[in-house]
C-alpha cells in the first residue's frame, strides 16, 4: 500500500485542479509519438502520422490524448488503492492492445514535460516529486496484469 503525506495529496489535487485535459492530453500524446517514434506502432489505425505536423494535426491523436489523460482520474479518485482500480485497464493494455509496459514510463515523462510547460515555475521540485510518485504508482498498476 502506498503511503501519501498530506502535502503530497495536496500537490496532486492542485495539479489536477489546474489540468486542462483538452490541452495537456493531445500535447502529451503528440509528444510521445514524436519524441519516441516507436510508440507509433500502436496507432497505425490513426491514419497520417508521417511527420510532426501530421501528428500534431491528427484529430484522432488529439481525441485519444484526452482519453489517455482521463485514464489518470481513477488514480486521483482513489489514491489509497490505485492498484486494484487499474486491473481492468492493465489487462486491456496487455491482452488486447499488446503495449510494451516500458511505454507507460515514456508517456508519463511526456505528460510531466507538458505539465511543466503549462504550470511553469508553480510546478515546484516538491510538486514534481509527488507527481513522479503518483505516476510511478499508476505505471506500476498498469503493468501488473502482464504475464
Amino acid at each position, binding site marked *: 500500500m502506498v503511503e501519501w503525506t498530506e502535502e503530497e495529496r495536496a500537490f496532486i489535487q492542485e495539479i489536477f485542479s489546474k489540468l486542462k485535459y483538452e490541452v495537456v492530453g493531445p500535447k502529451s500524446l*503528440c*509528444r510521445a509519438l*514524436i*519524441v519516441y517514434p516507436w510508440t507509433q506502432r500502436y496507432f497505425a489505425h490513426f491514419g497520417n502520422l508521417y511527420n*510532426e505536423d501530421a*501528428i*500534431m494535426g491528427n484529430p484522432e491523436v488529439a481525441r485519444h490524448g484526452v482519453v489517455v489523460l482521463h485514464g489518470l482520474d481513477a488514480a486521483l479518485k482513489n489514491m489509497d488503492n490505485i492498484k486494484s482500480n487499474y486491473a481492468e485497464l492493465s489487462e486491456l493494455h496487455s491482452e488486447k492492445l499488446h503495449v510494451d509496459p516500458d511505454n507507460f514510463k515514456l508517456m508519463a*515523462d511526456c505528460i*510531466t*514535460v*507538458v505539465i*511543466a*510547460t*503549462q*504550470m*511553469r*515555475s508553480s*510546478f515546484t*521540485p*516538491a510538486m*514534481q*516529486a509527488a507527481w*513522479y510518485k503518483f505516476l510511478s504508482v499508476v505505471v506500476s498498476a498498469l503493468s501488473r496484469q502482464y504475464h
Partner: protein
Amino acid sequence: MSLSDKDKSLVKAFWAKVAPKAEIIGHDALYRMLSVYPQTKTYFSHWPDMSSGSAPVKNHGKKIMGGLAEAVAKIDDLVGGLLTLSELHAFQMRVDPANYKILAHCILVVLAVYFPDDLTPEVHLAFEKFLANVALAMSDKYR
C-alpha cells in the same frame, strides 16, 4: 540513435536561447533530481548542504551546464571531444549510467518551465537525443 544534421542545428539554436539562463537552469535541474529521485543523493554524501539555493548545488549545477556547453561545441565528436570528462566519469565518479537519463529528464522539465514555447516536440526530440549521446560519451570508458 545518432544525431542527424537537423538534430545538431536544432540543439545549437535552442542552446543559444538557453545559455543566458544556464546557471539558474543547472541549479534547478540538479535540485529537482535530488528531490524527485533521492537515490541520486548517494553521489553527493560529501556535501554539507543539499538544500535549494545552497552553494554546493549552485556550483555543481553550473559545472554541469558548463559541461553541456562544451558538448554543444563539440557535438560532431562527443566521445573524442569530451575525453577528459569521460575519463573522470568512468574512472573516478563511476555514476551508474541509469542516472544520466534521470538528470536528462530533470533538465528537460526545467527547460519546459523556462522555455515552454521553444521546447516544441521537435526540439525536445533533438535535445533528448543530444543528452542521450552525451551520456553515452560520459560512460564510454566504463568497460
